[in-house]
């Protein structure tokens, strides 16, 4: 079902899955092109969660998807505000963040029952990827160029505001004291995690691909974790 939510800067679309009450997960996708590559797996994961009686919400952020705001106008602070507004729009159900990659940098404002992070990244790691993609595109990607640019910075086909990139500096995934957090990683990632699943990260795939096995593994992990949180 296509729903929407209002945030201080406007109205954005939000895909809804599963039952209208009980626990619900609010998905924060990875940034830019990685979101396109990850979407099929995320949607399959939300459908599987719905089968298990857990609601799901997949919002557009300002400047993504169907948003009327230009990508280059978006800032990470807007996305944090939008995430908070999307969580509030879900009502007083227990809301759990399911944040993927850079998405783990925008779920800090909402009142959440827990945070489930898939391969969370620091802002520095996102910036490093941006510089690398630009280097690969044959563009000059030194720090001065990224931060000093007057015009939007092109990152794999997306026009990204320098303000957005500046907002990433020093950003860390939020681990709120007293609120459950679980970290899951994929593939050969050796960073600390509660669980590492042997699978190809969908955001690395050059072409978006279905991966029903991975979607099921992630959904089952989330469902069991939520069950343990709900106690």
């Amino acid at each position, binding site marked *: 079902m296509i729903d929407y939510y209002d945030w201080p800067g406007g109205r954005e679309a939000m895909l809804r899955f599963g039952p209208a009450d009980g626990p619900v997960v609010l998905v924060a996708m990875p940034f830019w092109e*990685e979101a396109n590559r990850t979407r099929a797996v995320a949607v399959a994961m939300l459908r599987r969660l719905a089968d298990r009686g857990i609601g799901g919400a997949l919002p557009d952020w300002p400047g993504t998807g169907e948003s009327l705001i230009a990508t280059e106008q978006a800032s990470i602070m807007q996305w944090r505000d939008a995430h908070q507004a999307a969580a509030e729009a879900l009502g007083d159900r227990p809301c759990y963040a399911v944040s993927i990659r850079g998405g783990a940098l925008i779920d800090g404002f909402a009142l959440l029952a827990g945070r489930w992070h898939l391969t969370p990244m620091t802002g520095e790691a996102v910036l490093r990827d941006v510089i690398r*993609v630009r280097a690969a595109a044959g563009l000059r990607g030194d720090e001065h160029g990224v931060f000093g640019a007057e015009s939007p910075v092109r990152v*794999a086909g997306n026009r990204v505001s320098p303000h957005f990139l500046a907002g990433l500096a020093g950003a860390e995934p939020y681990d709120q004291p007293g609120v459950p957090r679980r970290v899951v990683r994929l*593939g050969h990632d050796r960073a600390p995690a509660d669980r590492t699943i042997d699978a190809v990260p969908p955001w*690395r*795939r*050059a*072409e978006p691909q279905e991966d029903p096995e991975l979607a099921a593994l992630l959904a089952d992990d989330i469902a069991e974790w939520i069950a343990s949180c709900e106690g």
Partner: protein
Amino acid sequence: MEVQASKDVVATVRGVLADVLGLSPERVAGFDAETPLFGALPELDSMAVAGVLTELEDRLGILIEDDEVDGEMLETFGQLVAFADAKARA
């Protein structure tokens, strides 16, 4: 021409290309030193190049500086393996 590098590195580079570019293992197994990559594989766009480099870092425990990234190291399978092998030995 045969690829001159440690078997682990060759296998790792094949695995990374298969996973990141979504190529079949059979197709990647057929790559030799002369197989062209950059410019020849439409899947190898800038995101994919970044993904290949990051996966190589993770799997080989190496660090690739961005100023080392150029078209030459990605021109053929043999050149990519040679680059990764030199890094893994350093």
